């Protein structure tokens, strides 16, 4: 029985995504010039409602950004961190520290390894505490490419993360931006193994003030397309063609 206060009913984005408990691996593909960040911020809202715990690897946006957007969507990320329901892993701090200092030969390999070990540690800690779902969110896996980490190593990193889902309470959300050729390889490999595939693209005809972009949700053979429009305080979704009716009602 789903209550009316469930954001999956009341929130337009979450009701179009329809994420269920059996969706282990959620993959969000962000095509060039689109912004899929709203999906993660909305998913967080659902995760907090379900009292899940989150391990969050932030590579693209900062904690401040998520805190500000979270406030608008009705959850407090920093409070959740203080209550040990959310653990942020921010590799950017280490990257800033390493600027200017000399690096060892296998710096990149070490970085991925230590990142995974810290993720694993946090998740094992979460597992030992309560019997509640745990989500691992990776906001933007494709940034590893910018750090000139080899493709094969990134794929094996994904493989390790995905293997964590053998634990019944464990779920993975991966976001990837797709622009260049290596991005496509990463996206295709994650798409191959995911349970829910969400694709966010900009409109083919260019920018519009009425519609921000196109969101496609694919689950098995079932595919749904939505147009969405981002407002300051939320995102509206609607089926293509319903746009005018929805925006001005």
């Amino acid at each position: 029985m789903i209550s009316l206060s469930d954001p999956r009913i009341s929130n337009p984005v979450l009701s179009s995504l329809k994420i269920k408990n059996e969706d282990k691996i959620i993959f969000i593909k962000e095509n060039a010039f689109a912004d899929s960040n709203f999906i993660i911020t909305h998913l967080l809202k659902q995760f907090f409602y379900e009292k899940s715990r989150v391990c969050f690897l932030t590579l693209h946006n900062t904690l401040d950004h998520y805190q500000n957007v979270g406030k608008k969507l009705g959850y407090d990320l920093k409070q959740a961190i203080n209550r040990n329901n959310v653990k942020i892993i921010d590799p950017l701090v280490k990257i800033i520290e390493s600027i200017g200092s000399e690096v060892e030969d296998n710096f990149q390999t070490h970085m991925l390894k230590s990142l995974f070990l810290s993720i694993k540690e946090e998740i094992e800690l979460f597992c030992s505490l309560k019997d509640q779902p745990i989500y691992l969110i990776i906001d933007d896996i494709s940034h590893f490419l910018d750090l000139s980490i080899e493709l094969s190593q990134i794929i094996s990193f994904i493989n390790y993360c995905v293997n964590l889902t053998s634990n019944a309470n464990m779920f993975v959300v991966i976001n990837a931006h797709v622009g260049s050729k290596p991005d496509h390889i990463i996206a295709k490999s994650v798409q191959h193994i995911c349970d829910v595939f969400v694709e966010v693209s900009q409109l083919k005809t260019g920018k519009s003030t009425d519609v921000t972009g196109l969101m496609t949700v694919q689950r098995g053979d079932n595919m749904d397309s939505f147009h969405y429009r981002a407002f300051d305080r939320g995102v509206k979704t609607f089926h293509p063609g319903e746009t005018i009716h929805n925006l001005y009602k």
Partner: protein
Amino acid sequence: MEKGKSESIPGTIISTQNGHLLVSSGIASLDVVLGGGFPVGTVTLIEEDFRGIYSKVILKYFLAEGLSTKHSVLIASQDVNPANIIKELPAVIESDPEPEVPSKGQDDSNQMKIAFRYQNISSTLKDPSVKHIGHHYDLSKSISLSDIENSDILYWNGQTIQSGVHSFINPAYSDLLKSIKDKIKEEKLFLKDNPEKKTILRIAIHSLGSPMWLPHRKSIHSMDSSSQDLNMFIFCLRALVRSAHAVAVITVPSYLYDEDSLERCIHSSDISMRLQSFTGTELEMNQSLQDYHGFFYLTKLAAINSLASRHPGSMEHVFKLRRKKFVIELLHLPPDIGEDNETKKDKVPSLGCGGNNKHLLEF
């Protein structure tokens, strides 16, 4: 970027929409397009026009605004001597050098009778919700030497690069990053530092990734891997700038790269724009575009601290460089009727018989 603390920094304003700390780009019309100015802690990428003239003008405005508001400034270039860029900065003046005046006769004789509603729409960009914080500059005059001496400027020209093992193939990139980091540390501009007197570091990088940025020992062969360096540089710079009171503007000669290879750089930057000048293209001769110097495309305006980007949507912008001022305007094409008359006038009478047209020699 907390609200209460940052009010004291000169030359900044807090956006009413999302609580961002903004600095002016120095160009009033560009500030309007960006929704007030550059947010502090962001990286802006400008894809240069073919000859890099207009992108340099934008960079100069950005630096000049930094000097007149007493911000710290870092200028980096391998193509030209950065000190020369600073010497050519436009001078601050009291008021708008070339204000938009409605042309004579528009009031009486030119009054529209049918499409009268369009009369109130001006082609210049104005947004009453955006308060202008920048100064006015005169491009025909350069900044005085005493102003330069009194300012805090760091020049980086890539001449003294220390060797060592870095994650970049090209040592210039890691050296520049290190200089930026040292400068931020020295001025105590990291967000966690919290010094008494706060200021902003403006980072301007001219022609990043141009052929001059190639490593010395491996020449053209490493072009592929050097473009990876470029992605990594912008990603690291963004991480650095986010953690400090700093704002960076980079110009990149994008025509030297493949179409897709800059896509990752755009993804790693927060704002990206492209300048396409008419010079050397067929658009140069176009009657309706003769008032302008090129197209201005805002390719990305990231939504930071909010869900919705403030991108103006499907608007088309054009830019022009006047004698004293650089402006960005909305593109308005004149009605098609005007051009029809032109083409008729130009028609050359030709000899011959037959054809439907009545010939000039016929009687």
